[in-house]
């Protein structure tokens, strides 16, 4: 027994020492590995949030709502949260890897800034380990449709005014429209008619034509005047129309369900007579592929007619009317055709534009501006549109 107590050994000490050393090395390796894994995870999340932000930029442009966003006041007076479809909430990307949301700012008449902040999915779920966030910007510009409107009526052919027909280039705010939403600075008076040959304009009474000048002879009016509008051609504008219709006989009137404007109805072209009603802010681009006859009631926006446009009786349109063929109106008594904005009738076959009865073509900068703002979508500016905003 005594001998056993006197035995000395190092095995336990060596084993403990070895375990400590090996344990330290293993712990170090685990630590380094964990750090590496975390860095890799963060990198992945950074990429996900970046992808979500880029997608957000594209989605805002794709889902641009001119009636809302084009009416923004200049920054810093105004801004709009996007995406509009989920006001107050971020949107989830289709692959569900991230979310995005942000604001649209109007910088000046032409340029907007889309400011998007996106996060990866894990951040959105509230993972406490932090998250990745990316903020990107895109400068976009209203896609220019420069109609070069210089008169209440622009035509290549003849104009015949009969009865009580009136063509006026004096700027007028349509009845019932809020002047606060109308720009009345500059362009207050246009010509009554702009034509390459003033000899083709005839009227029964001298005051049937108003404007400065009454008749503007402009030899630059040619086929491209009706086909190319700044950066946009007639064909591409027609292709981008919200409402596509074939030629025919139509009655046009607003359709609302409760407080919602039913934009699915092709004969609903907005409600210019009642701007505060649900369809009052609806300004579609309408393309009619053929001859059209309209028998009331009203519409607004940009109307493109490939053939002739025949107005029977009472009809009011607010905005821009572009007729590749001839414009004819007929009516009398209390019924009339009334255009607020500007009309361009190409009259390629040199038929006469016949305006009879109480037809009135009234230049309205407010109607033109609202129609343009209500229909124009945006594209990124020509160069340097994209920005990392940090």
């Amino acid at each position, binding site marked *: 027994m005594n001998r056993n107590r006197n035995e000395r050994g190092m095995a336990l000490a060596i084993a403990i020492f070895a375990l400590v050393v090996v344990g330290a090395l293993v712990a170090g390796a685990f630590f380094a590995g964990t750090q590496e894994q975390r860095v890799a995870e963060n990198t992945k999340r950074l990429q996900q949030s970046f992808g979500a932000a880029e997608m957000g930029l594209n989605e805002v442009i794709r889902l641009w709502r001119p009636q809302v966003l084009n009416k923004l006041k200049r920054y810093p*007076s105004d801004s709009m949260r996007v995406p509009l479809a989920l006001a107050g909430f971020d949107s989830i990307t289709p692959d569900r890897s991230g979310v995005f949301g942000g604001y649209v700012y109007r910088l000046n008449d032409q340029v907007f800034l889309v400011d998007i902040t996106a996060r990866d999915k894990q951040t959105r779920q509230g993972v406490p380990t932090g998250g990745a966030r990316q903020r990107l910007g895109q400068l976009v510009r209203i896609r220019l449709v420069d109609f070069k409107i210089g008169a209440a009526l622009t035509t290549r052919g003849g104009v015949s005014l009969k009865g009580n027909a009136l063509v006026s280039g004096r700027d007028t705010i349509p009845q019932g429209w809020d002047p606060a939403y109308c720009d009345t600075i500059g362009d207050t008076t246009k010509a009554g008619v702009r034509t390459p040959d003033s000899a083709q304009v005839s009227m029964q009474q001298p005051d049937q034509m108003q404007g400065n000048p009454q008749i503007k002879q402009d030899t630059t009016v040619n086929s491209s005047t009706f086909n190319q509008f700044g950066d946009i051609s007639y064909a591409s504008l027609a292709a981008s129309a919200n409402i596509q219709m074939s030629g025919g006989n139509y009655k046009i009137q607003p359709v609302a369900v409760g407080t919602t404007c039913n934009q699915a109805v092709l004969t609903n072209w907005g409600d210019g007579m009642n701007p505060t009603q649900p369809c009052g802010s609806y300004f579609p681009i309408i393309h009619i592929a053929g001859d059209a006859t309209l028998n009331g009631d009203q519409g607004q926006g940009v109307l493109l007619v490939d053939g002739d446009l025949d107005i029977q009786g009472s009809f009011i349109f607010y905005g821009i009317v572009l007729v590749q063929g001839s414009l004819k109106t007929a009516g009398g008594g209390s019924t009339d055709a009334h255009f607020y904005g500007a009309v361009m009738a190409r009259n390629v076959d040199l038929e006469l534009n016949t305006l009879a009865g109480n037809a009135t073509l009234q230049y309205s900068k407010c109607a033109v501006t609202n129609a343009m703002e209500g229909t124009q979508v945006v594209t990124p500016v020509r160069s*340097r549109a994209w920005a990392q905003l940090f």
Partner: protein
Amino acid sequence: MPALNRRGLTMVELLVALVLLSIVSTALYRVLVSNQRIYQAQTQRIDMQQNIRAAGQILPADLRELDASEGDISAASSTSITFRAMRWMGVICSAPITGPLPAVTNPVLVFTVMDQKLMGERAPVVGDSVLLRYEGDEGTSADDGWVPGVITAMLAQNCPAGLPYNGTAGLRITATASMLQVAAPPQLATPNVVNAIYGGAPVRGFITQIYSLYRPAGDTSWYVGLTRGVNAIQPVVGPVLSNGLQFTFLNDTNNVVLNPALANDRVRIGSVLFTLRARTAQVVRNAATAAGSAAVIDSVTVRVSLRNNRRW
């Protein structure tokens, strides 16, 4: 206990104990050394991968914002790229006076930038280069562009009173500009016309920056170096191999740009593809066999599409 009864270790016992101890010690040593090598090897690999990952983040972040079509890449080779690195963006609340003489190609432009929408990596400083959005004719976007300039002075000054800016805080910037000229490309209709730059126009600030493969004096290792403005080159990623940074420049149809040394070819760059070949800072021995000491090599190839090239 009598002294004669005390017993020591016999020679045989001692030898056996020594042999056993040496066997255990050797085994333990080998385990420890092996563990240490694995640890070092892993640490080296992790460092290298961190390097590669950093390069995969840093370079694209700078390169993707370029507009090669309007001269953002001023020099390029297979191992180097010199470009305009965007640093901030702002919005003008007080537009500079442009025109009326198109012949004045280097006017001094004075404009105010809103503090509220000053965004980016850092704030503007004197000496920064700027690009002001040139609207020109509102009726077309064919003449839109960016006027380059250099900030010569800055002063805190509020934006104009009244809508829409309401006298919000701003920064008045004086810059010497180089007005756009009628040339192809880009074809600009009317250079330096009156009111060509509008209130609300965006302005971007940038510095010239270079990424290149380089070896510091007295060093045997290669690095990816970064030169910012007039500052000396600094290593940002490395060590890399002697061919550790290789650029390939592609046009919009994915064909290799013929000669990026030529300005006419550089404006056609649509994307930049770079390959980074990194190595571990120290040699790594094979942990299992203890044979073959060499640096571990890894590589990554990243393609960056330039987001800001002119679109038509």
